[in-house]
């Protein structure tokens, strides 16, 4: 593909990509407090890839990098699960909840607006899932863009 959309579309895309990614990150890191989480946030981030592909048409081949990000996300997820075993008691054990470290805050009793620095390993796992999903869905979109690449455009 060597066409691209009009300058208006490209400019709006450039502006919109930033809030889309920020919103995706918001969904991921608030996954333990509000509706959303790793999968949903990752899908939102991947939608920015879709927007860029549509607006610009051409893109560099990032498949190997995306594939690595995906593997890193999943590997870290399993390592977090296994850390539950080594630092806690069993696999997937939430060893860092309420210990005061990163995401280790304790939740006060009663109605509260939601404290982000809580949840132990749950938000960390959400982040890993978010990485995986964002990379994997972007990869699928790139593959699909590549597939249409091989079709001759009718004059």
């Amino acid at each position, binding site marked *: 593909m060597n066409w691209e959309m009009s300058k208006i579309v490209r400019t709006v895309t450039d502006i919109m990509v930033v809030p889309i990614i920020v919103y995706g990150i918001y969904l991921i890191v608030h996954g333990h407090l509000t509706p959303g989480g790793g999968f949903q946030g990752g899908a939102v981030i991947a939608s920015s890839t879709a927007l860029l592909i549509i607006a610009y048409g051409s893109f560099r081949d990032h498949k190997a990098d995306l594939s690595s990000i995906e593997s890193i996300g999943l590997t870290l997820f*399993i390592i977090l699960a296994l850390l539950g075993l080594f630092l806690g008691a*069993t696999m997937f054990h939430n060893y860092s909840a309420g210990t005061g470290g990163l995401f280790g805050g304790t939740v006060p009793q009663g109605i509260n607006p939601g404290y982000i620095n809580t949840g132990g390993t749950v938000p960390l796992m959400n982040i890993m899932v978010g990485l995986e999903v964002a990379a994997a869905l972007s990869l699928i979109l790139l593959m699909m863009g590549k597939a249409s690449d091989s079709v001759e455009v009718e004059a």
Partner: protein
Amino acid sequence: MSMDLVSASPAFVLGIPLLFAFLTPLANRVSKDLRDAMFVIGLLLTALFVGIMAYEVYTSGSWIYVFGSEESRPTQTASYFRIMFAADGFSALASITMVITALGAGLYSFAYMEGNTGMEKFYTLFFLTLAGVMGMVLTADLFNLFVWFEVTSIASCGLVAFQNYKVKSVEAALKYMFISVLGGLFFLVSIGLLYGEYGVLNFFLLADALTGGMIDKVALSIIIVVFAMKASSVPMHMWAPDVYAESPGSVTPFIAITSLGSLFVLTRIIFTLFRYSFGVAAVGHLLIILGLLSMFVGISMALKQSDVKRLIAYLSVSQIGYMLMAIGVAFATLDSADYSSFGAMALEGGLFHMINDGVYKALLFLSAASVVYATGIGDLNKLGGLAHKMPYTTMFFLLGGLSIAGVPPLSGFSSKLLIYQSVYLYHPILAIIALVVSIITFALIGKIFYSAFLGPDQGLTRGEVPRSMLVAMGILTVVVILFSLFPNYVVAEIVVPAVEGLGVVA
């Protein structure tokens, strides 16, 4: 709050393949040698933890592993909202079968798959399938079982279609995918029915809750059909020959092991859930009929095949029949005095046959793959005289073949003898059909051996297959020989705890 590697071994049996599944693509960015090394290390570590788990089960009894809980061996199952793994004799037997076959198929893959690009994806799919079948046989939770069922289905479909430049492989994978998705969705419906009725998914709690009403019967009937289908039992066997024959030679035993895994799951579900809700005789007779059909139709279809892998695929369908029949007889006699007189023996025979079948069938599939690898021909009418150039493969094939035919003193004979003796007491005709099928199996093995290996050297191959493939088949051969030499030991140490693990006390 302390680390306990022995208690945590069921988690490692699942976690190690998952971890290495995602580490191998990363290792591939560093170097191909590192990637291959990771593959072997992952397989060996999985085998190590299966060994640790089995040893612990056999020396100090079974336990429940609860994911995410405070203690690694909770004394009471109050935390039943969590995912549980049952580390008992039955899951030990099943995971030993899986891991032996995985080691054989994995080592064999190195040389066999050489020249294919994207091997890191192959290793990922291989590890994911391994994690899936391990999860399937270890889990004690219906919904978790569905998750592992799907993981196994998707990953093994990827393995079948890995050589996607072969049209037939892709077609077989498509067929396999349809069957798996259909089965998976029906399984999900039945889980929904049971969950809606009782609000629990855990095997043990569900067993206590089941009342035997209409909904139970519908749900459990769907489950039996789905797993019989995945176990390639006739009349739901149509996918198996295509998938076994068209998948890459080195993964065929691994695909066959997912079928065997489904049979393990079916056995566990029948013995933990069905006995409290159905009349045992009805389910037992259904399984006996499925078993007889599988044996007879499988072997009849095998008679007319000329492709070596397709022929062995049909033999494999007929072997599934032996296990279904043995389990059916054991289950039908469960509530009567017959159980202690011969039902328990049928169950032991069935479970012993499962572990034997997993190993010798892998050996048979791999030696058939070696024939195709060395000559490029799978048609028995065109093969001949391979014994001159491929003495080791000939020997491996003969050993696996005689074992599947149940020729004494090989391991297949020991387990089949247990089955013949016990099903004869239930009804003589069952044992007669089983014997006839064994004789035809022997004849078919003779046919393959005669037409592919014997006769004058036709110059079809330059020589023996690469050494790593011989080593992989050698490992399986050693296991077959060990099982053949010490059947009493295997039954006493591995099979009897598995029967106890099913919660059946004679």
